[in-house]
């Protein structure tokens, strides 16, 4: 049994029913959700559209109130403004003041946490570096930002208070593969720092890469819960990875496995993910472009003495 102190989030029978103008029940967005998220883990909240993911996050942040049940965040009732001191939130789209520039945005949210000016002068540029917004972007109004830049500044505002719990709603939406990779790296680095991350997404590959545990919601109800590794493991299939085998040896291996009684045997070369390939190609290209032009001059000089 887990104690409340070791849990970042606990929900008990958390239910949200949306009602019409006359107070009659219209939609049950969330139905009896019982959930515990451990401190220091990356937890994924999965589900198709309308499954109750965003409703859960809104309830945990106090943006809406439960119809039934309770939610506790970092040991205090959800939505309590004191607990918000230790929570960071990145909404599914960057709902920020579009007339502010990047720096002004972070200074504004920093002031809501009563972070001293001196500290903000240090932390704001640091955070902008972390999320990869360059000096030019910092002075541009948010209405001029691309979707990816808006996600980055949104993430920066979520981290301005160095929170213990970070709620990320579709964090990789609108990001290019490099940005997606950086976001995932950042999530893992937050985990390393001991932060708890609640990730809400329907991009399953992203969740698989970073989450320790996940739950899948459907029609407002929790369908499954567990560690990603356990849930994804196919118990009756064995995978062997080896390097340095030729075609003849692969034939032999296949024959050997059949002799052991294995069925549906596949012996082939593994493939990388498309994301890995994209990242590698782009990074290699960027590296080449950044190489000092003097090198090519030297080669030319050597060829023509």
């Amino acid at each position, binding site marked *: 049994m887990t104690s409340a102190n070791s849990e970042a989030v606990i929900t008990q029978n958390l239910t949200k029913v949306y009602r019409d103008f006359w107070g009659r029940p219209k939609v049950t967005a969330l139905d009896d959700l019982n959930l515990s998220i451990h401190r220091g883990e990356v937890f994924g909240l999965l589900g198709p559209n309308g499954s109750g993911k965003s409703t859960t996050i809104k309830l945990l942040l106090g943006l809406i109130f439960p119809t039934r049940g309770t939610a506790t965040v970092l040991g205090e009732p959800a939505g309590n*403004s*004191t607990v918000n001191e230790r929570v960071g*939130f990145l909404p599914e789209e960057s709902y920020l003041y579009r007339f502010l520039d990047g720096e002004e945005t972070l200074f504004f949210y920093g*002031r809501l946490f*009563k972070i001293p000016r001196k500290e903000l002068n240090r932390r704001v540029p640091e955070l902008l570096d972390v999320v990869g917004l360059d000096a030019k972007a910092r002075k541009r109004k948010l209405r001029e930002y691309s979707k990816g830049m808006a996600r980055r500044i949104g993430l920066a505002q979520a981290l301005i208070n160095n929170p213990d719990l970070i709620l990320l709603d579709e964090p990789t939406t609108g990001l290019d593969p490099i940005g997606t990779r950086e976001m995932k790296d950042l999530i893992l680095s937050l985990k390393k720092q001991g932060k708890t991350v609640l990730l809400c997404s329907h991009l399953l590959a992203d969740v698989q890469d970073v989450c320790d545990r996940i739950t899948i919601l459907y029609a407002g109800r929790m369908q499954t819960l567990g560690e990603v590794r356990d849930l994804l493991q196919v118990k009756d299939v064995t995978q062997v990875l080896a390097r340095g085998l030729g075609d003849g040896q692969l034939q032999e291996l296949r024959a050997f496995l059949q002799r052991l009684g294995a069925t549906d045997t596949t012996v082939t070369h593994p493939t990388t993910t498309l994301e890995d390939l994209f990242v590698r190609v782009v990074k290699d290209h960027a590296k080449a472009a950044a190489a000092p032009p003097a090198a090519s001059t030297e080669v030319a000089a050597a060829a023509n003495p």
Partner: protein
Amino acid sequence: MFVSPAAAILAFLGLNAEWSVCLAIVVGGLLVVGGADVIRFSLKRVMAIASVCFRQSIRRRVLWITPLVMLGVIIVSQFQRGDPQDAIRQTITSCLFASGLLVLLVMIVLASTNLPKEIENRVIYTVATKPATRLEIVLGKVIGFACVSFWMLLIMGVFTLGFLNLREWRLRQAIAADLEAGAVDEISRSTLQYYQQAGLLHARQMSRPARIDLLAHRPRGADDLWVPGGGNGLIVAEFAITADQVPAGSQVEVEIDVRAKRIYMPPVADTQPSDGPAAMLPSPPRVGFELLDEQNMAVVNMFQVGQPQPIELPEVGGVVRRRIEPQFLELWLPRAENPRPVYVSLIGGGPQHAYGLGRGGFHLIVDGRRIAPVGPPRYAGRSGRFGEQLRGGSGGEAGVALFQFRDQPVPAEAEQVTFELRVGLEPERDESDPDAEVATRIVLEIVNRSNDQAATVELYPESNRSSFIQVPAGVVRGGDFDVWLRMAADGYVGLRTRGYPPLMLVRASQNFAFNLLKSLSVLWMLSILITIIGVCASTFLSWPIAIVLTVMVLIGRWATDQIDVSDTGRSFVADFLGAESGAQARAISETIDRLGEVMTTAARFMPDISRFGAIAELQSGLAVSSQTLLEALGVTVLFGAPVLVLAYVFLKYKEVAP
């Protein structure tokens, strides 16, 4: 009789229902509902939200509207015509009206739309999920918009000051040229000379008369106070009585000890009427009385009280005693929870008589208990176009107005002091040439009660315009003096006895810019109140409905006062259905009356925007009084505070995620 403290508190709360409700909302909202948020309150967070709100408005180019408004004012001023006084007055009105309208419209739109739009575009997600409490969010928005209105008014104020100074400079140049060329008539000369010396942009601080009485003739002693007959004069007594002091079934009577005398109208000019040969006019003195409300409007007229005919008196007068029917009492007496002064007025009939009060004076008698009036009765004139009418004339028929200045501050060092006179003139026209200009002579006599110094001034004022009269300072020294005014021409002079008195002494002069600043402060307070109402409405309504509600709350009380919905059922039935009896007519009448009561009750809980009198004093060249500022502040705080707390409570329990 012993009254327990609890009963006393309950009685006080009952009498001050509006304030009690305000207090309950503020205390209940902040301490009961929002105790935790009050403890966590941070001004730093409030200012962060306010600064974003302000920046949002500025970056949306809200201030860009101000040059357009300025342009509008400049264009309108080109079409304004009239004498210098009118020109400056119209320009002040245009500038302040434009500033007020601009700020009010912008504030209504900004305040009513901000929160719903933040909820709609979900920016509120990133603010409400921070440690900012809903109290801080509401307060931050109000402060942010208050800053926007402050800057708008500051810009408009600077423009107004500059534009007015430019116009004033040009008008003074023209006045100087006219005076030098002698192209000025006698009527305007003294006023124009005053403008040339003191300028047209005034901020005068005035000494006001303690009371104004309109009498049939100048008294020869303290008891020699008379009003003219023929319905031209009234004697009015104030009573402090409420409906709860008159139990159901009580017998209420009015008792007035009336004196009457015949007055002789000599055929030649004579300022002193005599009591003359009374026998030449045979009709006996006759009087009636009316019951007036706090506005001195007749609630029950003389034909409804006592008997349909005026009451005949013995030749020297006598005691009039008449019962007031219960249905009239119901109309006349205010309720205990809303006490107001009420008045009884005596009207004398027959132009050949004058009427005064005997030793008994006025009394109300409730079941044998005598209730005396509050203070001495006032001698008044019949209501006319420009206020109370004082009869003029070259002979004894001319009445006099007495302005009593008591313990008034007066300029200490000056050799000459200035009076401002503003009267309405209703001269008798020449029937053969009704369009002919009639110069009306007004005679003022100022008598110092301390040192018996006196000065007499004759002038020819323009109707309903300020005239400035300079007299030696000795006649007002000590601040205890009387001014007698009479019109030495046929017709009537109208004297407003409510609001700004028709005759005041210029005590000191303030800087006009400072006066303008005070006027703009009143507008600013109004804009803050609008912002609070707008933000509150937007916490539970969509923005278009919030705008409508804000406007309704803002003008609700004023509109209810204007249409005066009380007791309109009977007249509605009579006017539109043509019937006053019958069950159907009664049902309609009662329904309308009940609706009127509901509206009146609801209006009591709406802000009284007539308290934000920003323009009237400035336009009249008077220094904006501290009372005006305090009244505006009072309404802003006492209405704004509970509405602000309500906005917080509504937002606290609002699901901000759509």
